């Protein structure tokens, strides 16, 4: 009987705490400021003070895949995500909404729209930019660079524009780097590293063939401290960079 009462009590709490609105009712600048304060105390430990990730996921993106609506974001913060390290948070509804407002502000700060024309950007990606020589988009393009099909779900126009200008910044986050290797039998392979661990490495060569080697089969291998992505600083003008960034940020994969 006590158990039954406890169960009903728990359910009562849950029902009471489910928001009755779909849209965040607390989004004033004051709410965002209070949300930031709460965020820095409760969330930054995992997600980083700027929301760009640490142990937790990167929140400074325009679309949060598991919290695309206000209500979904509320539920993630309040009740956590099962089978992940995201815990429930015993906050008042107002506090949850205020944190939500700040998290959305993190994303919108990143998604600050450029003055780009995405129609022109589409042409530049396929023409002057030559992007599809290496990247796949809408089923066409090359295989050496990461696919751009859902780039907009992960990256803001500002980030895309900065990578067009300075693709070699923060190489540690770029796993797919050029690699040259030579086997003990004399075979030479150049390509892109697609995976690596302590004992093995997997490579896609420039003819798109896949190779996998145990490292003890190799006489030598070198993962270069560079990216094959060229800088477009001298190839495209400022407006063209904006156009491409604007177009690519609209590619968000399956919604």
């Amino acid at each position: 009987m006590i158990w039954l009462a406890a169960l009903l009590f728990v359910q009562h709490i849950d029902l009471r705490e489910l928001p009755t609105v779909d849209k965040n009712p607390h989004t004033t600048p004051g709410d965002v400021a209070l949300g930031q304060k709460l965020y820095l105390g409760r969330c930054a430990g995992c997600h980083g003070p700027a929301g760009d990730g640490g142990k937790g996921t990167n929140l400074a993106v325009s679309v949060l895949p598991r919290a695309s609506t206000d209500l979904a974001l509320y539920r993630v913060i309040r009740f956590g995500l099962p089978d992940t390290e995201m815990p429930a948070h015993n906050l008042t509804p107002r506090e949850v909404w205020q944190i939500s407002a700040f998290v959305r502000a993190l994303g919108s700060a990143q998604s600050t729209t450029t003055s780009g024309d995405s129609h022109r950007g589409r042409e530049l990606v396929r023409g002057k930019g030559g992007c599809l020589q290496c990247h796949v988009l809408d089923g066409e393009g090359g295989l050496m660079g990461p696919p751009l099909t859902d780039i907009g779900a992960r990256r803001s126009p500002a980030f895309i524009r900065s990578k067009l200008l300075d693709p070699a910044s923060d190489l540690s986050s770029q796993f797919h780097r050029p690699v040259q290797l030579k086997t003990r039998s004399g075979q030479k392979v150049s390509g892109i590293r697609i995976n690596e661990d302590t004992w093995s490495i997997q490579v896609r060569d420039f003819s798109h063939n896949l190779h996998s080697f145990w490292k003890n089969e190799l006489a030598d291998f070198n993962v270069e401290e560079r990216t094959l992505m060229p800088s477009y600083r001298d190839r495209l003008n400022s407006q063209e960079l904006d156009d491409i960034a604007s177009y690519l940020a609209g590619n968000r994969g399956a919604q």
Partner: protein
Amino acid sequence: MRLLLGIALTLPLAAQVTHERILKSSTEPGNWLTYSGNYAGHRFSPLDQIHDRNVQNLKPVWVYQSGSLQKFETTPLVIDGVMYISEPPSHVTALDTRTGRPLWKYRRPMPDDVRVCCGQVNRGVAALGDLIYVGTIDAHLVALNAKTGAVIWDAVVANYKAGYSITVAPLAVKDKIVVGIAGGEYGVRGFLDAYDAKTGKRAWRFWTVPGPGEPGNDTWAGDSWKTGSAATWVTGAFDPDSNLIYWGTGNPGPDWNGDVRAGDNLYSDCLIAVDADSGKLRWHFQFTPHDIHDWDATEVPVLVDDEVRGKKRKLVLFPNRNAFYYVLDRITGEFLLGKPYAKQTWAKGLDDSGRPVRLPNTAPTLQGTPVWPAVAGANNWYSPTFSPRTGLLYVAVREAGSVYFIGEAEYVEGEQFNGGGFRSVPGEQEWGAVRAFAPATGELKWEHRLFSAPWAGLLSTAGNLIFGGTNEGQVYALQASTGKSLWRFQAGGAARSNPISYSTDGKQFIAMAMGNGLYVFALE
């Protein structure tokens, strides 16, 4: 009925696990009776059927799939042909050691509003008498019948709604079950508890944050001791000669904002030595006074006897999360040696008493301060191993830095109390290594480089082998004397656990949780 009879006949008659059996665990190498294999924290198996000349023939013989996607951090216990594992969040399963078939399961429903910083994990169970003990995410200690899994008693250790949880494997010592708590990111007041093994009645509690009037309370400004954390979430060691239990304590709360808790913040980031009968503090050693980088001293203490400057000493070895390797006298707590064993940029060194001499500009800031080691440290909760055969200590070392941020810290009961955060250092690639050290000097004997910073512990065996696991899914074996890579198996999931070894019917097995499965290996 015939089936049941068959099982009863083929399984050896399980004898009771006594304190004396655990004390003499090396005399029954087929079993794994306590978290670290023995009380000294060695994680060493005297079995040598699998050795450095035949390990290349090691093959998986069974896999047990956990039903949870949470990290699977368990260290199995093996007692007379039965393996006892914990599974996330706080479940216990008994398995037949030869077939991997479950014999019973204890499944504990968990409230929706538990408080955990880092996943609903559990690192293993303890055994004493005919009971199995598990700490739970909702901060209970539960005793189960080892033959059936039936609950014998269920003790509330702490109020989970205040941020407490239990992830640690308890330690059975004499007639008590010693258990620590987690909650260092929730501003709890930490403690170490012991419970009567038969009844579940609390025998003693040592508060790891002293209250008013107690020694050490003056190392906390104002009321900051009330939310001082110093959690006790990794299993300690026991020395029967001195009757001392050695246990590491965690970060002070809040993690990265030290402004609100001026002082050394005892007994956070300490190794404490408490009397096994009374829980009274004999000595403590604080590795990181007034920690502002979240460098919990929650590593497994390793007890060895060795010569220091020509004199035989009873030592405790402690490769700390703060990237310094410490050697202490385990009877007195005297600092004997301390030196970096991984990249560190926060301290000029240690003074004669072992206290760090901090470098300027290493505190967390609003803009972020890059410091080595990373927030996860050069070492963490996972186990080191000491091999009496090689006389070496082996540690899975993390080589990484973090950018540390300070933030506001306002305490609300049951909510995270961090006061900042961290991120990876832009442009830096973390890596790892298994390193072998001479215990008393910390001299590096060899290194086996790992592709990424590990999250799994090590096992040494009398077969001149070291076993471990990688983030990329391999279980591996190295030659203990040289570090040479001898064997590996791709298990398809990251290692977040510690390996063990046991034998059944004269056959040696290696067991390690990988991904969401427990993998067991033997020679073909």
